[in-house]
């Protein structure tokens, strides 16, 4: 016989869980879809179209639930599940981006060749895509170290397997490299977390006990900084910031095209969400990084600058389009990071804007790679010579997307870069921190460097003629793919002229700053 107190606590706990479950309906929808796909796979239903349809429908349902809720869930002050999850407006926006990206990836993996995904494994492919999505969605709404670790691992383990889905030599090699780098990064992060737990006795870095015990701590700032940066290593790995970027080019080259497109956006933005929150809360309490005789902004700024330079300079020498896009995504990470360390509400808003545009242009670029790959059976940029004249629609789309990736008008890529630069300039004016000035300069220089390799693709497509070797079409491009490409390209142009449409949405997000 249990004591009555125990029973009543139990009931209170169960009530809390039931109440909290209503706050994560989108995640539940994704989990249910995942189980459904597993079941279908179990019963040997290998119909690619059916699997895509069910996955797409599940993602759409989640999006619908997310927006009917729209943050209107009565969220308790401490969050859902005793403060484990905090579905605030930032996470609502990011989760909609993730769902959109998942929809694009599912769309790209249709067709006879399924963008390089082994056709007999489509069931497992969709399962893993959904579990990666689920992990990313959880990552975007937590400040609790336990859930951060679990969701990062959910994303990582799904990614390791998805990398292997081309089932060839290259993708196996990419898989093992990704796995080893990822495992070490998460072990380092975990050690950092365990030290922070030791210093504070709390696991939620947004909670009051965490901050008050940091404030009352009577030790050197050095161990704290080491622990803080070790914990950051895990987030920076997901973001592929420079010292943790070595996996990205190999993984993008080895993974199937829809998977590479998904990797380049979703885990990166989820890591960004964690970084934004981590930096925000530490700034708010002004302990770890600001008050000590150590300038954290300096380190992050150096990493951002290095990401831009190393990403762009390495991209100059690439001939494989996917590898080039990997280096380009490392460079874009530098821009995202510089918006975060501008350390203002404008900075975060510009980062969110940049992230949304980055999603559109990166997916457009990967769809282009997929279509061109289907036309030539080759991912080498040289092999696409002369295609611009044969397929004028594709040629025009390539020009627009590459101009957007470079960051020139009249595309939204320009608006996004402009916003990030503005926030950096403002932060520089306010703080007079010379590093921010140099970072701004690095950003401008890198936009020029980027011009050379992005425009290489249109250059080969228009100004070089194809060699004599017979080009075999491996896949006839479906109409759906071209329509999606058209929509993405159109949006990139639209958001240049009507940037305020997107900015209004972003302004609805409330920040701590």
């Amino acid at each position, binding site marked *: 016989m249990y004591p009555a107190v125990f029973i009543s606590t139990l009931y209170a706990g169960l009530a809390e869980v039931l109440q909290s479950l209503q706050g994560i309906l989108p995640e539940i929808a994704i989990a249910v879809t995942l189980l459904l796909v597993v079941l279908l796979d179990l019963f040997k239903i290998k119909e690619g179209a059916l699997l895509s349809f069910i996955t797409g429908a599940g993602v759409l349902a989640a999006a619908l639930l997310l927006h009917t809720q729209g943050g209107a869930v009565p969220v308790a002050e401490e969050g859902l599940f005793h403060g484990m999850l905090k579905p605030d407006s930032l996470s609502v926006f990011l989760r909609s981006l993730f769902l959109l990206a998942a929809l694009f990836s599912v769309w790209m993996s249709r067709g006879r060749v399924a963008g390089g995904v082994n056709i007999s494994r489509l069931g497992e492919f969709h399962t893993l895509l959904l579990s990666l999505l689920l992990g990313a969605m959880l990552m975007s709404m937590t400040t609790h170290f*336990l859930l951060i670790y679990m969701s990062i*691992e959910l994303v990582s383990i799904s990614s390791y397997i998805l990398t292997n889905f081309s089932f060839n030599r290259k993708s196996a090699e990419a898989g*093992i490299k990704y796995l*080893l780098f990822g495992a070490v990064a998460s072990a380092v992060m975990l050690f950092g977390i365990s030290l922070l*737990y*030791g210093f504070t006795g709390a696991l939620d870095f947004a909670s009051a006990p965490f901050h008050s015990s940091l404030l009352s701590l009577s030790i050197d700032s050095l161990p704290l900084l080491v622990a803080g940066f070790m914990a950051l290593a895990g987030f920076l790995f997901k973001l592929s910031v420079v010292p943790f970027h070595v996996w990205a080019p190999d993984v993008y080259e080895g993974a199937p095209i829809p998977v590479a497109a998904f990797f380049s956006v979703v885990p990166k933005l989820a890591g960004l969400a964690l970084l934004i929150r981590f930096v925000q809360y530490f700034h708010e309490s002004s302990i770890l990084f600001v008050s000590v005789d150590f300038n954290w902004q300096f380190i992050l700024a150096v990493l951002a600058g290095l990401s831009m330079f190393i990403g762009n300079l390495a991209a100059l020498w690439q001939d*494989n389009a996917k590898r080039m896009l990997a280096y380009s995504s490392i460079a874009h990470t530098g821009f995202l990071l510089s918006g975060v360390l501008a350390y203002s509400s404008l900075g975060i808003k510009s980062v969110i804007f940049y992230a949304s545009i980055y999603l559109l242009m990166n997916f457009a670029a990967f769809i282009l790679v997929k279509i061109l790959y289907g036309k030539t059976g080759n991912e080498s940029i040289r092999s696409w010579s002369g295609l611009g004249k044969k397929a004028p629609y594709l040629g025009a789309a390539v020009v627009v997307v590459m101009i957007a990736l470079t960051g020139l008008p009249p595309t939204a890529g320009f608006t996004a870069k402009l916003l990030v630069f503005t926030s950096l300039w403002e932060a520089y004016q306010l703080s007079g921190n010379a590093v921010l000035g140099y970072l701004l300069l690095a950003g401008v220089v890198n936009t020029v460097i980027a011009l050379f390799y992005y425009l290489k693709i249109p250059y080969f497509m228009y100004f070089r003629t194809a060699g004599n070797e017979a080009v075999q079409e491996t896949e006839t491009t479906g109409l759906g793919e071209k329509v999606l490409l058209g929509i993405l390209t159109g949006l990139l142009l639209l958001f240049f002229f009507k940037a305020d449409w997107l900015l209004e949405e972003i302004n609805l997000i409330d920040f701590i700053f």
Partner: protein
Amino acid sequence: MIPAEHFLYLAITLFCIGLVIVITKKNAIVVLMGVELMLNAANINLVAFSRFDALHLQGQVFSLFVIVVAAAEAAVALAIVLKVYSYYKTSELDKVNELKG
């Protein structure tokens, strides 16, 4: 009662041994063993520190999660190593180097 620092020394030593193994060893499976040491170093820390968190014991619960996740990761890792072995006939990481640039 063993003082808390001793656990910390043990954890840091284990972590460093693991890191050195990861950096120097060439066989994929040995590298995974190094990672396992690093994860368990963190576990020791978590369990030792949860002594000061007697009300919630969050550290101990955390370490349980870590153990489970590490097992899942090892399973995936060994599957991928097998895949690599079937293509390259080796698990030496130096010889798995076709992606470059």
